[in-house]
């Protein structure tokens, strides 16, 4: 840069005509490349302000965002526990469920993303506007209770993972909560998204653990593509559990609200759907790797009882070595951190949408008081409760699963009705194939939820429809 260019070029004002010195321009201007050459009104001009659309792999990478984050957050502490016990208890037998489920998962997540782009509104906004305050408040109350419970379990997961890695949870959990809080309250949406996307990289710990376990890949393929059904009550309950942990209302809420906040407009939606598909595929692939890793080690060694994600990691140590345990612990830590941020966010979105008050990571405390207060309260309460010794986390998660089970079919119906409302979605309405897949998913999920609730209810009465467990 030539210094004289910006300096004062005044001369004594006696001879006004020569007052301004001819400017000394930089002899070799900074190289400015880039831009786009356009032909406008018959003149060819290079417009350096324009950006060429990114091409190739970069283009696809830039599309990733809400979908990948939402679905990855679904592989949280509770998810890891379920997938690990599926692997530990039944080996590779349940992998096919995840394969089939990926289609449903992708369809549901994509519908939410599309709904967000087509209307610029979150799921609760639309439920409130179309179906009234009663349904909206019902959903909000269930979401508050269920997500509050899950948030606690995420911070328990952070604590457990850090203890496995040799840290004191009473130091680390408040620290993690502080970090999450700072990121969301002081960050813009773009920055929060970038950090969340980086956190999803942690999930590659699971493929590493799976490969280290040297599974029998033939058996894996058989488990993935040959459906097996057993009359074993535990098998059926785990199958239902896999459905329930993969499809959760908060994942759908977060998907839609963050697509809105990312500012995806309906005319640019087309390629964005890839994000939802990749998210569903990636997160289920990681779940499959968890099943493989535990199947090849714990199941083979006959250790079939897994209570929590930390249990799974601990059980891995004697069987698969300290490296496998560390990988599981790192995965658990990343997943819990991500979900520990996403859950309070999804809850805050839902509540503020239902009430119609300002919301969004891009705003600040002053302008979105309810949004950030609720977020803060959830993070503080979640981290605080997680440190209470002897907290019945497992029982809490069971209760939460019941709440989410009740809410999930309701949410699916709303999503399907809203996406088919031409006045809202216009061109982006569902195609017939989507409706078939969507309603099919709804039917299966409803049956599974009814079964789960029914068996739990009868269980509490002392009746076991599936025989003794």
């Amino acid at each position, binding site marked *: 840069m030539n210094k004289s260019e*910006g300096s004062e070029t005044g001369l004594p004002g006696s001879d006004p005509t020569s007052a301004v010195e001819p400017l000394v*321009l930089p002899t070799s201007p900074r190289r400015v490349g880039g831009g786009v050459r356009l032909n406008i*009104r018959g003149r060819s*001009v290079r417009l350096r302000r324009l950006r060429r659309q990114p091409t190739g792999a970069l283009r696809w990478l830039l599309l990733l965002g809400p979908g990948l984050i939402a679905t990855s957050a679904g592989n949280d502490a509770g998810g890891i526990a379920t997938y690990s016990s599926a692997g530990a208890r039944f080996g590779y037998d349940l992998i096919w469920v995840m394969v089939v489920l990926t289609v449903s998962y992708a369809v549901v997540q994509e519908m939410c993303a599309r709904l967000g782009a087509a209307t610029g509104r979150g799921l609760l906004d639309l439920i409130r506007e179309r179906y009234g*305050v009663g349904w*909206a408040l019902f959903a909000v109350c269930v979401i508050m209770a269920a997500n509050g419970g899950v948030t606690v379990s995420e911070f328990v997961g952070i604590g457990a993972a850090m203890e496995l890695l040799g840290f004191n949870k009473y130091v680390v959990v408040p620290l993690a909560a502080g970090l999450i809080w700072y990121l969301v309250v002081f960050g*813009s949406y773009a920055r929060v998204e970038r950090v969340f996307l980086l956190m999803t990289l942690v999930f590659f710990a699971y493929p590493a653990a799976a490969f280290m376990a040297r599974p029998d890949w033939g058996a894996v393929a058989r488990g993935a593509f040959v459906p097996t059904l057993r009359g074993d009550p535990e098998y059926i309950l785990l199958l239902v559990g896999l459905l329930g942990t993969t499809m959760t209302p908060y994942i759908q809420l977060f998907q839609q609200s963050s697509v809105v906040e990312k500012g995806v*407009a309906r005319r640019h939606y087309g390629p964005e759907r890839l994000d939802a598909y990749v998210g569903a595929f990636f997160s289920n692939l990681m779940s499959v790797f968890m099943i493989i890793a535990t199947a090849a080690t714990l199941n083979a060694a006959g250790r079939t009882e897994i209570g929590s994600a930390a249990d799974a990691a601990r059980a891995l140590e004697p069987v698969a070595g300290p490296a496998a345990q560390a990988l599981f612990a790192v995965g658990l830590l990343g997943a819990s951190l991500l979900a520990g941020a996403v859950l309070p966010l999804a809850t805050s979105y839902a509540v503020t949408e239902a009430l119609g008050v300002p919301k969004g990571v891009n705003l600040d405390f002053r302008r979105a008081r309810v949004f950030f207060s609720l977020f803060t309260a959830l993070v503080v309460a979640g981290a605080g409760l997680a440190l209470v010794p002897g907290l019945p986390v497992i029982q809490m998660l069971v209760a939460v699963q019941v709440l989410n089970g009740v809410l999930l079919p309701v949410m699916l119906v709303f999503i399907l009705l809203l996406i088919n409302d031409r*006045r809202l979605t216009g061109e982006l309405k569902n195609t017939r194939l989507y409706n078939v897949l969507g309603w099919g998913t709804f039917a299966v999920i409803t049956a599974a939820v009814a079964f789960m609730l029914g068996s739990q209810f009868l269980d509490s009465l002392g009746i076991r429809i599936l025989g003794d467990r």
Partner: protein
Amino acid sequence: MVVFSEILRCHVIDARGARARISDLSVDLAEEDYPPVMRLFFINAEKQHVSLPWGAVTGGDWRRRRLEVADLGAARAGPLEPPALEVLLKRDILDALVLDLQHRRVARANDLWLGEAGGRLALRAADASLGAVLRRLSRGWLGRGSGASLSDWKNVEFLRGDTRGARAGAYYERRIARLLPGEIAKLSEAIPYLHAAELLTLLPDPVAADVLELMTPERQLQVFEELDESQALRLLALASPDTAADLVGRLAPEAARQCLERLPAAQARRAIELLRYPDATAGGIMTNDLVYVAESLTIAEARRVLAVRLREPDFVYYVYVVDDEEARRLRGVVTLRDLLLADEGSRVGEVMNPRVLTVGPLAAAAEAAYQVIENHLAALPVVGQEGRLLGAVTVDAAVASVAPPNWRSIAPRVFS
């Protein structure tokens, strides 16, 4: 006054004793301050959505939750879709976002209040209080009529979230135009992008262009792309060249080309001129909408020339002095005050201040910005080869380019 959620629990009863539950009411938004109720909707015995004109109501008692009509059978079946200017209270307004212009806030219409206006039943207010929610959920048992936080309907703007819908009813009263562009822009940040785009369609073009300029860049782009093409181009032509260039610069190349082809020639030329410089340079943040005058003119001549030129540009604090209009080599600067106070007979070249800081178009944007801020300048002229005046980095552009991306949310807010 009666609340709408209460009306929804009423029945219509005719002379023969047939009864039906009211399902919705339509109002005419084209009418003055308080839109009158036009029609009454209910579901008849054949399970069809039918409507009766409000004039058919012969009497009734809100307390006993009944309305009387002569004949329910006279109700017209047909689509629920009302004529363009009528909106349905339950379907369209209840639970939707409304802008309370008096309190400068966005709220959900938790309930609606109807009352007499001009001898007819009309929509009087939107109720955004939590009490209204409570009242609706408890079917009237709780949260009874405090009415503390009502938004008088004459201060409410109702949005449908559909740019075409609003255009169809474009001639209804645009209350939103009462606010300042900055206030409208700020309100529009708190609503979904389709609502914000609809808001622009409700405004006269010059105001809409100002509002568009004041939105955050992301919102600007989203909203701009939702407008129909002719309005988008009109607003772009009205916006300052640097805003137009910023906006076009964020479009995809093909969309940008089409925009530039269709803009009026003068605006297109200015925008193209600005778009030639990369983002992070002085040229990338400058405006080229300046007032300049040749140094050889006398003050009297200059005043005449400027009387015409000063109408157009945005930035008029400085008048730049150039050697002649063609070569446009920068010689100095005069302020409007200098021009007013100077002797008519003297030449511009004698009055001007020849000591001017300048910067090249490819200098780093941050460097130019800090020069503006540190020297307390209103603008810093950008000059090219041989001192040709290309544009100026204004203090606004300078602050925007060095402030953190979320500076708008940190900066003092306009209302409440």
